[in-house]
């Protein structure tokens, strides 16, 4: 295999530039209601 295969991911450092619009879902709202995480949430920023 290749030594390293890099998965395409959102660059978190870059996301600081246009981030923080606050339109995304509140953490555990609308689904689990008992354990919170943010990894499974969608970004809803229309100007990113």
């Amino acid at each position, binding site marked *: 295999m290749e*030594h390293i295969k890099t998965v395409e991911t959102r660059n978190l450092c870059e996301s*600081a530039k246009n981030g*923080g619009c606050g339109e995304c879902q509140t953490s555990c*709202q*609308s689904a*689990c209601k008992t*354990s919170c995480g943010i990894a499974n949430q*969608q970004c*809803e920023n229309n100007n990113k």
Partner: protein
Amino acid sequence: MIHQYKLGGYNIVLDICSGSIHVVDDVTYDLIGMFEANSREEAVKNLMDKYSGTEMGTKENIDECYDLILELKDNGKLFTEDNYKPMAGELKAKTSGIVKALCLHIAHTCNLNCEYCFASQGKYHGDRSLMSFEVGKRALDFLVENSGSRHNLEVDFFGGEPLMNFDVVKDLVKYARSIEKEHNKNFRFTLTTNGVLVDDDVIEFANKEMSNVVLSLDGRKEIHDRYRVDYAGNGSWEKIVPKFQKFVEARGNKNYYMRGTFTHANPDFVEDIKTMLDLGFTELSMEPVVCPDGDPSQLTEEDLPIVLEQYEKLAELMIERDKEGKPFTFYHYMIDLKGGPCIYKRISGCGSGTEYMAVTPWGDLYPCHQFVGDSKFCLGNIYEGVTNKEIQDEFACCNVYAHEECHDCWARLYCSGGCAANAYHSTGSVRGVYKYGCELFKKRMECAIMVAINREFGE
């Protein structure tokens, strides 16, 4: 900071602060592990010994891997430093006073008597109560008034069992739809139900108006019926499963979750996931029970290794089903690597008590549904707004850097500090951490990322 682990035949390296994910060969995996504590010469020599006599063990091969690691580091994709701390309070400060989501406790009563219910059979340790239309209407007005420029507003109809007050649910949706245009808002409704009162009217209404429905089913009949019983003690599985099947079939492509709870009685919860799949459901969530310390349903230390193994089995099952062309979704394994949350969201923590609040049937505001019933957490009410600023400040300051235990945890930008209610109930402080929950969360993330990698690189 990096985190490396082996799972599903992959050597996985996460660069926590850039969000980068790499799949690497054995030599590179070992080199990355030695990178920070050893000089280049030491690391190369060590691995030449370890892999001696193999193609991988040549100096040339190991040097090549080392150079690639250096290149990633220079490009900000490995060993990236955490420079985000100064930004931690920014999002909440910027959005201070803005509310964008409410959990409406439409019914503090229930037609099931589930022993493990965190809401004490829907009553939240108080009296049975239904929300009136007037209270609900004022709550929606409160949300619109306090939502600033937020376009998407989320409202959950929650309980207890919200369908025990279905007419008010319908009237509130109608009212919300009548005001959303003039205020340039988009209401997204969710309904959580135990299924007992689901009928054609509910299905038609919910499939038209609810962005999401959360349907409570614990999986296997004997597991479900152990806790999810009516007041005569009869299990509800037989009654609700056909209703849920009809509901989901009629729902088309709209979101839903079959949401189960696993307890000490079924730490082998993948069997329950399989039951849900056999019943034709594909959008699944299975949550560890939340209950008081010492409750018989509580997950134990002995259950922990079983549960962790189950998460791996679940990941294997997902990969198998992908191969068979019968994929399914598990809520906690959903991860959008290319378009997930920005760094502000990742460090700000749960929005409970600030952008998200729960409303009791009589209009009191709480930081979230899990604090309802504990009067010291009452924030105010929908008529006067938030008056208990001290409690609200506690939640406003609750970002990922406020939890000491999170400072050196690799999962902190995936969980954002975790659930404030879980932290409070296990440590007495919303700035604590629920360590048992952390162990489960970390395993879920490792599995979720492995499944995502397999979807990208797998055969």
